[in-house]
């Protein structure tokens, strides 16, 4: 059985509040994950969800701004942040020491990465191709990997590869008997890719502690209306659906899927039904209103959380411009652990007309 979700190993600090926002346990009673009623979440989880939600909201605005002023690709600002992805990710056991859960945040929203400990500045660096983190300038986009924090990014193809990779990671957890699970966000059409089926089949067969969230987003011309529930049934794995549900219900549903996963009952596939465009932050606001009404968080703490999130994002976008671009040498980051990357001689001195090799034998005696 798993540690209660939300029990992160380390947490970041809410700057304006001077205390940790992750590293929390649920203090409220465990609600039925399938129940219709909105069971309160513990105060610290609630604070986290509020903070992360505000961060996402301000980040969205900030990215649009930066794109407008040419500091980011407009292509990269063309995303739909879905606050529910944050809630889903936060229901996992996020850690900072390489021993928590794993998450592939998908490409649609930074929410899950934020929930797993990424900072707004890191998100922006990646979008802006800045060279101050190991990979932002090399692969960038919405996606990067930080094994320590459990973020498994991939800005590559939508072929279901991350379901395979996270299935394998989950297999490792299971093999070692660890209380860890993996969460992967995929988009709808990815289910058309054979690679996704192979990953899902494997995960189902070995009962890997894996949760696959299918973000049922913008229909593309090439998406058939796959019946995800039938697909899940064909792999004998559990299925859930998230629609315009309250944060509380989403959180508990995922927490419960996580519990099933780590206790060996196998993967769950969750379909995330798209929100009406105008609703994208309504669930956040409803949640905030509820926690204040319930007295879990006072209005003044809520205001502090909001302004702390705003400050963090402002700080990040302000600092982004001052950060150095990558150095060209970063293009030569090693592709092998033990090799110095080779620069073509045209970037260096030309070879001498008859390049003399070292005379010493490179061949071992054998």
């Amino acid at each position, binding site marked *: 059985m798993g540690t209660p979700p939300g029990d992160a190993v380390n947490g970041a600090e809410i700057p304006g509040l001077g205390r940790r926002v992750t590293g929390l346990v649920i203090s409220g009673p465990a609600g039925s994950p399938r129940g219709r009623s909105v069971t309160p979440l513990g105060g610290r989880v609630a604070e986290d969800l509020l903070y992360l939600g505000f961060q996402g909201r301000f980040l969205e605005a900030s990215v649009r701004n930066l794109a407008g002023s040419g500091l980011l690709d407009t292509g990269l600002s063309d995303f739909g942040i879905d606050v529910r992805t944050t809630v889903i990710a936060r229901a996992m056991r996020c850690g900072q020491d390489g021993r928590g859960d794993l998450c592939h945040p998908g490409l649609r929203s930074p929410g899950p990465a934020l929930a797993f400990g990424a900072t707004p500045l890191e998100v922006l660096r990646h979008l802006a191709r800045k060279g101050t983190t190991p990979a932002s*300038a090399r692969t*960038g986009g919405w996606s990067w990997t930080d094994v320590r924090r459990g973020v498994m990014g991939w800005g590559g193809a939508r072929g279901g590869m991350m379901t395979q990779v996270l299935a394998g990671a989950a297999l490792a957890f299971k093999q070692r008997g660890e209380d860890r699970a993996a969460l992967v966000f995929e988009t709808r*059409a990815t289910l058309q890719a*054979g690679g996704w089926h192979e990953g899902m089949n494997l995960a189902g067969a070995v009962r890997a502690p894996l949760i696959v969230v299918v973000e049922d987003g913008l229909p593309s*011309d*090439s998406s*058939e209306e796959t019946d995800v529930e039938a697909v899940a049934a064909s792999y004998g794995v559990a299925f859930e659906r998230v629609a315009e549900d309250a944060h509380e219900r989403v959180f508990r549903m995922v927490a419960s899927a996580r519990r099933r996963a780590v206790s060996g009952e196998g993967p769950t596939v969750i379909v995330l039904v798209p929100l009406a465009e105008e609703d994208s932050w309504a669930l956040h606001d409803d949640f905030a209103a509820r926690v204040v009404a319930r007295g879990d968080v006072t209005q003044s703490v809520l205001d502090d959380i909001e302004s702390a999130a705003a400050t963090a994002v402002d700080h990040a976008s302000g600092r982004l411009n001052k950060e150095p671009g990558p150095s060209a040498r970063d293009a*030569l980051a090693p592709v092998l652990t033990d090799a110095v990357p080779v620069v073509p001689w*045209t970037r260096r001195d030309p070879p001498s007309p008859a390049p003399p090799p070292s005379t010493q034998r490179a061949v071992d005696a054998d």
Partner: protein
Amino acid sequence: MPTEAPPHVNRTRAGEAATFLEAISEALWEEMERDERVFLMGEDIGAYGGAFKVTRGFLDRFGPSRVIDTPISEGGFTGAAAGAAHMGLRPVVEMQFMDFVSPAYDVLTNYIATSLYRGAGPIPLVVRGPVGGGNRGGPFHSQNVEMAFFHTPGLKIVYPSNPRDAKGLLKSSIRDDDPVIFEEHKGLYRAPHCREVLPPDDYVIPLGRARTALEGEHLTIVTYGLMVHRSLDAAAELARDGIRVEIIDLRTLLPLDEEAVAVSLRKTGKLLIVHEDTRTGGIAGEIAIRMNERAFEWLDGPILRVTAIDSPVPFSGELEDYFLPSVQDVVTAARYLVEY
């Protein structure tokens, strides 16, 4: 229901200059009008008109049975295209980015490439799409894919450098009875300096034949695609010092026109290969050993190459520019060889 051709497939009929991308669109349109066996498959190529809008307007004109929006399953629809080709159709498959041809690697190398040899008949099929770096696409939207297929007997690989060749070579590829991988460099798609008025007739350019892009005598540069332009820029700079470079634009990489390379090498005695793709295992190696096999005595210096660095394509602009071969790289290598 036949509709008017949209503007981007009507440049030549209107007597206007066409971009590289428009030349591709024109070739597809004309071949579909000419031969009802020709049909298109790909992701979002129908209503959406394709990621680069190559097939905008095609659905209206040719209908959904000849402009097929596929699921995201490059292996599956390439396999299906092979089945349709077996039955006498002539599929043209679009990869949204050619980087995504990798899930189709299995079916292309094992099933499609071996068909004729297996006695299963030819598979006339074109797999086309955008390739190449310089567009800040990062490692998964910037690749060149020729070396994934160059080692597979039974495939042809075409990589044009200008609108005229693109149109003529794509028409040849569609009419060819063999499977063809057709690479279109994104950096050429809308490049203004590439725009040109195309011949008004139904011309084709034969596969397997290189083209002399520039006549010269001091050094042969063998190249293709966007690098033809980099090499021409380098040649212009070298010309200021009286160095006259001959540039061979391969156009088709497989089969390789080694005869054209050898003839030029005989004249110049020096050979430089320029490719945008990464270095190790690039096409330069095969050209080098073929020239060893048939033209060793004419070599007045080593066969050298200018290529990208052995690394994934970086995402940031600064890094990508450093990663890619530059005009200056070509100039440096050319000078070195000429002075050798």
